[in-house]
C-alpha cells in the first residue's frame, strides 16, 4: 500500500506545483495570457484524475490564478471535492479556494452543507478550524440556518482555538440568519467571561459589531462591559469596549457621567508624559462619550485643546486622527471647533491628500454667512493648484456642498455663487459637470431674482461652448451646457441678446455634444425662437422675424440627421412646426402669440421627497381595484392601454387651475409619480395650483435691479473675487448705517416662501443679503406628514438584527436541528399520470464514506466496490395504446445506448484500473445476456382520466445502481402550482435495498415539497424498502411558480445496499425533466367554445413546420394527443384543430395541417413563451416520426 502511494507520488512529482506555476508566470512576462491559458488546460486535465493529491494541487494553483483575476468558478465542484478530502493538507487547500471564490450566487454551495457539518464535528481541531474559517467567508442564509446549531455547540468546545472561531463566526451567522440571534445570545454573553482571552476578545468583538448597529438592545450589558474594561489587559478588547460605550452613552446619560471622570484624568496623565498616542486614543474616546452629553462643555473644551496639539504634531498619523476626531466633535459642538479655523485651513496646504480631505470635511461644518466667501475663495485657489483630478473633484464637490448646504443658508449673494459655478466650469477633466449643472438649474429656478443675471452668464457659456466642449466626449463638464441651454430657453424673456444666443445654439459644433444635451438644445432653441419672434412682432419688424425663421429652417436639419433618437425626433418635429410658421408669416398672419403659448406656464420646484409625504386621504384604499379586474386572459391586453392613457395625461402641462380639490390631488400624485420615475426630471414641475396662489404675490416680491458694478468683461468668465471685495465694502457700509440708525428695517415677511432668516444666530443677522433674494421653498404636498423615516435605508442588512435580547426565549425559538422527515406528509392525495423513467446501470466508482449515522445505522461500510448498474429509462405510456408495446420497443434502443453510456463514463471519470476491469467484465456479461444486470421492467401506472404526463429521455448517461426508477409527472388540477411525480423504484440487483432517500436540487422555479421545517438540502425518505426484484411506487410533490418553460432538476437517490458481504452506501444521480407538455392537462373543448376563444384575440400566435413526415395523419394526431396532452376539437380531412389547457389555466389551441410530406402547426396561447416551448417540444417529437 505504502509502495503504491510512493509510486503515485513519483508519478506526479513532475506535475507543476504552485511554485512552478508562479515561476512560469514570471518567466513568461510577454505572453502571460497564453501561458496561463495553457496552465488552465493542464489544470483541467489534472482535475479529471482520480488522485486527490493531484486535484488538490490543481485547486491550489487555481486559487493563485483567481488572485490574478481569472475566473475559476467553473471548478467549484472540484473545489468541493478537495474540501471533502480526508487529509487536512488537502482540506485546507479546498477551503482556501472556496473562501476565495464562493459567494452567495455559487449554486453548488448547498452541496457543502453536510461536508461542513462533518468537518465541524471532526475530532481534529484543525479540520474544524479550517471549516470555520472557510465558512466565515462564504456563509449563505441557507448555510447559516442549517449550521447555526452546530456552530453554537462549538461555542462550548473544549479547545479555546475552536471556541474563539465559533464565537466570531456567529456574527456572520446572525447577519445571514437573524432568527438565530436570540437563541444564541445567552451563550454568547457567557463567552464574555471565558477564561481564554482569545475567546473573550472574540465575544467582545461580536457584541460590539452588533451593538454598533443597534446599541439600545445592548444597554443591559453595560455593567458587564464596565467590569471588563477595568479588568482586561488586552488593548484590542479595551478599544472595542470603549467604542461600544461611545455608542451606548447617547442612550444612557448616566453611563457617560460615570465614565467621563476617569477618562479626563487619563488625558491629563498622558499629557504630562507627552504621550501623544495615549492622548489620541483617550480623546477619541472622550469625544464619543461627550457626543451624548451636550452640556459637558468643559470636557469638550479639553478635547479640542488636546486635539489641536495632535493636529500640530509632526506625525502625520496623529494629525490625521486629530482631524478625524475633530469632525466628530463638530457634529455636536460646532462652535468649539470653529475657533480653530486657522489651523484647519492650514491643513489644506498639507502635502498629504488624506489630511487635506479630512480638513475639507471639517470645513463643511465650519462655514457661516460671514466666512463662506472667504473659505470658498481659499478653496478655489486650491482647485487651481490641485494636481490629482481626484482631489480636485473632491474640492469641487465640497465647494458645492458647502455652498448649497441647508438650502443655501449661508449664501448672501447669489450672483457671487453663480460666478463661482461658472468659474468651476473651467476645470478640465472633472467628472462633476452634472453636479454643477444641477446647481445652476436649482439656483436659477428657485431664486427668481437671480434669473436675469443667471441667464446672462449662461448665454456667455453657450457662446463660449467651444471652450467647454473642446474635449466633450472625455470630460463631463459639457453637462453644464445642458443647464445653460435650458436656463436660456426657459427664461428667455430675460435674455438681452437673444439672437446671438440662438445663433450660438445653432452652431454646427453643437452636434458633437452628447445626445441628451443636444436634445435640450433643440427644445430650448424653440423657446428662444418663440420669444424672439414675439419681440420682433411687437416691434413690427416683420422681416427680422422672417429672417430668424429662415435661420432656424436652415440650421435645424443638422439635428434632424442626428443619430440620437431623441434629438432627431424633436428636431424633425420642430422643423415642421417652423416651416408651418414660415407659411403663416408669409401670409402675414401674426403667429408669435400662439407660438409662445406653447411654452407658457411656470415651473415650481418640488421637494425630492414630496411624493412620499403625500398623506393617504381618509377612506382611500390604494390596493382596492378601481374597476374589477377583467378575466385573466384579457388583463394583459388591457394594461398597456391604461398606461398609455395615463401617460398622455401626465405629459400635458396643466395650465388651467383646477376647481376640484380631489382631481387636483390625483393629478399631482400622478405627476409626482412620473417625476420619481424620470431620472431626467429636474426636480421641479408645473403646479397649477401653486401658480394660482402665487399670482397675487408676485408683485410683492421686490425684483431687484441687478447692479452691474461688476464689469462682465471676460466673456463667460466672471471674476468671483470681485464679489468678495464688493461684499466686504457692502458689509462695511451696512454696518455704518446700522450704527447710525437703529435697525428699523424690518424684513418683509414673504410668507412661507421666504427664507427663515430668523433662525440665524445673532452674529449672522447683521449680514443682510446683498439682494433681496427669494428662495422658493420646495413644494410639499399639503398635510405632508413630517417624518424622518425616509432617512432610514429599508435595505439595511443590520436592521434585521434589531432584536430585543432581554425577552426570555420562547419555546418556539430554537435553532433548527436536522431531523428526519415524516413520510406521511409526503403523500399526495391525487394520483395521476405515470411517467416512466428508464434506468441505466453503471459501475460505481467511488466508495462513499458517508458518515451519516442515521442512514448507516452504525454499520460499517464495505470497502469493496460493488458493481451496480442502473439505467434510467423513461417510457411514455399512453392510455389508449398498450404500454407494454411501447416499453418493449424502447428497450431495444436502450440496450445499445447503455453500452455507449458506459464507455463515455469511463472516460469521463477517473477510475482506478482495478475498477475499470471489473466494469468491463460486467459489460461483457451483460452483452451476453442480461442475467446479471437484472432484467428491466417498465411499469406504467394505471392512469386516471386526466393523466397526461410523461418525461423525456435524458441525454446524459446516468450512473448505475441496483435500483431502477421510472417516473411520471402529472399536473394537479386542484392546485395550479403543483405537480406530482410518481416514481417507481425497482430493485434489479440481488441485494436488499433500504434507507432510500430521494433528494432534488431545487431550482428557483421548481421546488420539491418538503415537510415543514426541513431544509432544502434534506432528502425525502422513500417510505419502503426493496427486496431484490421488487418494485414499488412513491410520489413526490413539486411546486412550481412558472410553467412556461421546461425544467430539468438534478437529483440524487441515496440508499444502502445490503447483501451477504455486508452493506454499502450507494448513490444514484438522476435528472427529472419537466417538459412543458407535462403541465398540460387534456381537456375536451367544444368547437363553438374553441371558435370563441380564437376570436377573443388575446392569444399569442406562433407556428412551426416539420418536413419529412411520413406517418398517417391519424397516427400523427394520436401522437400529439398522447405525448402533449391535447384533445382533438375538430378534424376535417388533413386538417385538425386541437385544444389543451395548462394547470395554470393557459389555453392552448392548435391548428394542425398536413401537406404531402410535411406538417405545419399553428398555435395560439395566452403565453407566448409557453407556446413557443410547446411547439419546440412538438417539433422534436414529430421529427422523430
Amino acid at each position, binding site marked *: 500500500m505504502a509502495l503504491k502511494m510512493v509510486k503515485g507520488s513519483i508519478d506526479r512529482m513532475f506535475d507543476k506545483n504552485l511554485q512552478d506555476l*508562479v515561476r512560469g508566470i514570471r518567466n513568461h512576462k510577454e505572453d502571460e495570457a497564453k501561458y496561463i491559458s495553457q496552465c488552465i488546460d493542464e489544470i483541467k486535465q489534472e482535475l479529471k484524475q482520480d488522485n486527490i493529491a493531484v486535484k488538490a494541487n490543481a485547486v491550489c494553483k487555481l486559487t493563485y490564478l483567481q488572485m490574478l483575476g481569472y475566473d475559476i468558478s467553473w471548478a467549484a465542484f472540484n473545489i468541493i471535492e478537495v474540501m471533502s478530502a480526508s487529509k487536512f493538507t488537502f482540506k485546507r487547500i479546498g477551503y*482556501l479556494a472556496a473562501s476565495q471564490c464562493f459567494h452567495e450566487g455559487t449554486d453548488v454551495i448547498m452541496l457543502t452543507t453536510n461536508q461542513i457539518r462533518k468537518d465541524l464535528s471532526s475530532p481534529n481541531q484543525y479540520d474544524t478550524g479550517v471549516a470555520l474559517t472557510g465558512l466565515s467567508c462564504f456563509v449563505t442564509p441557507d448555510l447559516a440556518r442549517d449550521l447555526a446549531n452546530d456552530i453554537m455547540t462549538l461555542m462550548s468546545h473544549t479547545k479555546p482555538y475552536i471556541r474563539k472561531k465559533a464565537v*466570531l463566526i456567529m456574527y456572520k451567522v446572525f447577519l445571514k440568519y437573524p432568527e438565530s440571534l436570540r437563541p444564541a445570545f445567552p451563550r454568547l454573553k457567557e463567552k464574555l467571561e471565558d477564561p481564554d482571552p482569545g475567546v473573550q476578545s472574540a465575544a467582545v468583538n461580536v457584541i460590539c459589531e452588533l451593538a454598533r448597529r443597534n446599541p439600545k438592545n445592548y444597554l443591559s450589558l453595560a455593567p458587564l462591559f464596565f467590569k471588563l474594561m477595568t479588568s482586561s489587559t488586552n*488593548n484590542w478588547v479595551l478599544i472595542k469596549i470603549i467604542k461600544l460605550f461611545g455608542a451606548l452613552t447617547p442612550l444612557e446619560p448616566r453611563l457617560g457621567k460615570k465614565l467621563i471622570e476617569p477618562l479626563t484624568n487619563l488625558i491629563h496623565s498622558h499629557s504630562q508624559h507627552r504621550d501623544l498616542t495615549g492622548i489620541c486614543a483617550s480623546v477619541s474616546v472622550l469625544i464619543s462619550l461627550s457626543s451624548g452629553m451636550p452640556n459637558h462643555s468643559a470636557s469638550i473644551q479639553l478635547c479640542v485643546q488636546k486635539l489641536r496639539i495632535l493636529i500640530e504634531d509632526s506625525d*502625520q498619523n496623529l494629525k490625521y486622527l486629530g482631524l478625524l476626531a475633530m469632525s466628530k466633535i463638530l457634529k455636536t459642538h460646532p462652535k468649539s471647533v470653529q475657533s480653530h479655523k486657522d489651523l484647519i485651513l492650514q491643513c489644506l496646504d498639507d502635502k498629504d491628500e488624506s489630511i487635506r480631505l479630512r480638513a475639507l470635511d471639517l470645513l463643511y461644518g465650519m462655514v457661516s454667512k460671514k466666512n463662506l466667501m472667504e473659505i470658498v475663495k481659499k478653496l478655489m485657489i486650491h482647485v487651481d493648484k490641485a494636481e490629482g483630478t481626484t482631489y480636485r473633484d473632491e474640492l469641487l464637490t465640497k465647494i458645492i456642498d458647502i455652498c448649497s448646504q441647508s438650502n443655501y443658508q449661508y449664501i448672501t449673494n447669489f450672483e457671487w455663487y453663480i460666478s463661482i459655478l461658472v468659474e468651476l466650469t473651467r476645470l478640465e477633466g472633472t467628472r462633476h459637470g452634472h453636479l454643477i449643472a444641477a446647481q445652476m438649474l436649482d439656483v436659477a429656478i428657485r431664486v427668481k431674482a437671480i434669473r436675469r443675471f443667471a441667464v446672462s452668464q449662461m448665454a456667455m457659456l453657450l457662446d463660449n461652448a467651444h471652450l467647454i466642449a473642446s474635449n466633450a466626449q472625455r470630460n463631463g463638464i459639457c453637462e453644464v451646457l445642458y443647464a445653460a441651454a435650458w436656463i436660456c430657453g426657459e427664461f428667455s424673456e430675460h435674455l438681452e441678446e437673444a439672437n446671438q444666443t440662438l445663433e450660438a445654439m445653432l452652431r454646427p459644433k453643437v452636434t458633437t455634444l452628447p445626445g441628451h444635451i443636444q436634445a435640450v438644445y433643440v427644445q430650448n432653441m424653440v423657446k428662444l425662437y418663440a420669444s424672439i419672434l414675439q419681440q420682433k412682432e411687437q416691434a413690427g419688424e416683420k422681416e427680422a422675424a422672417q429672417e430668424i425663421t429662415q435661420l432656424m429652417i436652415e440650421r435645424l436639419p443638422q439635428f434632424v440627421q442626428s443619430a440620437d433618437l431623441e434629438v432627431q425626433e424633436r428636431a424633425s418635429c420642430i422643423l415642421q412646426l417652423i416651416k408651418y410658421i414660415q407659411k403663416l408669416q408669409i401670409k402675414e398672419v401674426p403667429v408669435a402669440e400662439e407660438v409662445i403659448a406653447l411654452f407658457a406656464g411656470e415651473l415650481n420646484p418640488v421637494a425630492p421627497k414630496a411624493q412620499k409625504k403625500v398623506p393617504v386621504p381618509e377612506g382611500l384604499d390604494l390596493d382596492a381595484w378601481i374597476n374589477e379586474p377583467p378575466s385573466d386572459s384579457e388583463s394583459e391586453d388591457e394594461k398597456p392601454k391604461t398606461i398609455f392613457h395615463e401617460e398622455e395625461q401626465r405629459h400635458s402641462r396643466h395650465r388651467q387651475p383646477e376647481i376640484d380639490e380631489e382631481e387636483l390631488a390625483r393629478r399631482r400624485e400622478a405627476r409626482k409619480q412620473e417625476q420619481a420615475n424620470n431620472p431626467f426630471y429636474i426636480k421641479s414641475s408645473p403646479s397649477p395650483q401653486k401658480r394660482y396662489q402665487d399670482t397675487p404675490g408676485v408683485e410683492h416680491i421686490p425684483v431687484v435691479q441687478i447692479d452691474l458694478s461688476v464689469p462682465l468683461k471676460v466673456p463667460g468668465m466672471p471674476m468671483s473675487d470681485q464679489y468678495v471685495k464688493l461684499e466686504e465694502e457692502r458689509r462695511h457700509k451696512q454696518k455704518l448705517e446700522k450704527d447710525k440708525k437703529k435697525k428699523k428695517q424690518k424684513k418683509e415677511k414673504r410668507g412661507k416662501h421666504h427664507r427663515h432668516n430668523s433662525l440665524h444666530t445673532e452674529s449672522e443677522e447683521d449680514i443682510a443679503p446683498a439682494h433681496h433674494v427669494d428662495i422658493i421653498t420646495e413644494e410639499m404636498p399639503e398635510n405632508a406628514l413630517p417624518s424622518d423615516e425616509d432617512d432610514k435605508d429599508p435595505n439595511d442588512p443590520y436592521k434585521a438584527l434589531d432584536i430585543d435580547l432581554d425577552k426570555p426565549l420562547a419555546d418556539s425559538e430554537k435553532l433548527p436541528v436536522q431531523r428526519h422527515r415524516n413520510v406521511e406528509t409526503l403523500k399526495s392525495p391525487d394520483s395521476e399520470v405515470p411517467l416512466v423513467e428508464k434506468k441505466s446501470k453503471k459501475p460505481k466508482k467511488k466508495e462513499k464514506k458517508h458518515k451519516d449515522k442515521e442512514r448507516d445505522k452504525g454499520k460499517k461500510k464495505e470497502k469493496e466496490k460493488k458493481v451496480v448498474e442502473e439505467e434510467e429509462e423513461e417510457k411514455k405510456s399512453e392510455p389508449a395504446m398498450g404500454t407494454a408495446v411501447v416499453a418493449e420497443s424502447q428497450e431495444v434502443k436502450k440496450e445499445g445506448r447503455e453500452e455507449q453510456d458506459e464507455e463515455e463514463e469511463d472516460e469521463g471519470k477517473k477510475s482506478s484500473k482495478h475498477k475499470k476491469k471489473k466494469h468491463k467484465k460486467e459489460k461483457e456479461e451483460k452483452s451476453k445476456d442480461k442475467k446479471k444486470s437484472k432484467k428491466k421492467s417498465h411499469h406504467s401506472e394505471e392512469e386516471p382520466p386526466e393523466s397526461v404526463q410523461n418525461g423525456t429521455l435524458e441525454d446524459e448517461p446516468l450512473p448505475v445502481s441496483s435500483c431502477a426508477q421510472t417516473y411520471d409527472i402529472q399536473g394537479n388540477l386542484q392546485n395550479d402550482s403543483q405537480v406530482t411525480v410518481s416514481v417507481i423504484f425497482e430493485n434489479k440487483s440481488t441485494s436488499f435495498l433500504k434507507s432510500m432517500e430521494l433528494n432534488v436540487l431545487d431550482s428557483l422555479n421548481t421546488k420539491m415539497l418538503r415537510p415543514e421545517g426541513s431544509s432544502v438540502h434534506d432528502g425525502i425518505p422513500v417510505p419502503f424498502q426493496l427486496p431484490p426484484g421488487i418494485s414499488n411506487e412513491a410520489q413526490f410533490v413539486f411546486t412550481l411558480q412558472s410553467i412556461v418553460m421546461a425544467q430539468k432538476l438534478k437529483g440524487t437517490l441515496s440508499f444502502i445496499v445490503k447483501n451477504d458481504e455486508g452493506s454499502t452506501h450507494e448513490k444514484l444521480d438522476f435528472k427529472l425533466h419537466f417538459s412543458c407538455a407535462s403541465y398540460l392537462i387534456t381537456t375536451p373543448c367544444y368547437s363553438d367554445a374553441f371558435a370563441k376563444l380564437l376570436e377573443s384575440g388575446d392569444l399569442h400566435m406562433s407556428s412551426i413546420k416539420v418536413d419529412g413526415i411520413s406517418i398517417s395523419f391519424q397516427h400523427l394526431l394520436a401522437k400529439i394527443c398522447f405525448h402533449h396532452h391535447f384533445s382533438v376539437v375538430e378534424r376535417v380531412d388533413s386538417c385538425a384543430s386541437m385544444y389543451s389547457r395548462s394547470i395554470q389555466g393557459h389555453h392552448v389551441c392548435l391548428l394542425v395541417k398536413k401537406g404531402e410530406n410535411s406538417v405545419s402547426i399553428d398555435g395560439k396561447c395566452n403565453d407566448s413563451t409557453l407556446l413557443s416551448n410547446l411547439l419546440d417540444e412538438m417539433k422534436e417529437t414529430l421529427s422523430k416520426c
Partner: protein
Amino acid sequence: MTSYYLHFSVEEQHDHEESPLSGQPDQVKSEDTQQQIIRETFHLVSKRDENVCNFLEGGLLIGGSDNKLIYRHYATLYFVFCVDSSESELGILDLIQVFVETLDKCFENVCELDLIFHVDKVHNILAEMVMGGMVLETNMNEIVTQIDAQNKLEKSEAGLAGAPARAVSAVKNMNLPEIPRNINIGDISIKVPNLPTFK
C-alpha cells in the same frame, strides 16, 4: 471589520509590491472588480510619499466613506488593509506589524519571494489572524503556535509519500537564481505608536 480577500503581487519593472488587500467578503465581487480594486489601491498607495500618514480614504470603490485603507510600507512591499469605522486606526497599524512579524517568524527571515511563491501559506497565516472580516487573534505567539501545529500535521500526513516530492522540489529550487533574502523589516521604521494602556 477587516478582512482579507486576496493577496496579490504586482510586479513593476524595478520594484515589487505586494499587498494583502482586505475587503468586504459579503459583497459579491467579480474578478474584474477585484482586479480593479487592486489596481486602484496600488495606484493610490504607491504614489504616496514617505512621511505622510498611513490612512487613505478610498471612496466608493472600497465601499464608501465608512471604509478606509490603512497601509504600511516595508521596503518593496505594501501591506494594505481595508477596514470600516469599527476598527481603531492605530490598532490596525499594529495588526499589520504583527502580521509582518509573524510572517518573518514562519518563513524564517521572510523575503519578498517567499510571499510570492507561497501565497497559500501567507493566506493560512492571515487566516489565523483575521476571519471573515473580523480580527481573530492578535497575539503573535498564539498565531505561530497554531501555524506550527498545522504544519506538523501536514508533514505527518505527507509521511513517506511526501519525501520524493520534497526532494524534487528541493532540486527545482536549486535552479532558482539566488533568492534575495532581504525584506528588511524595521529598516524603514514607521513610528508604530504603542497603544495606550488604560489603567
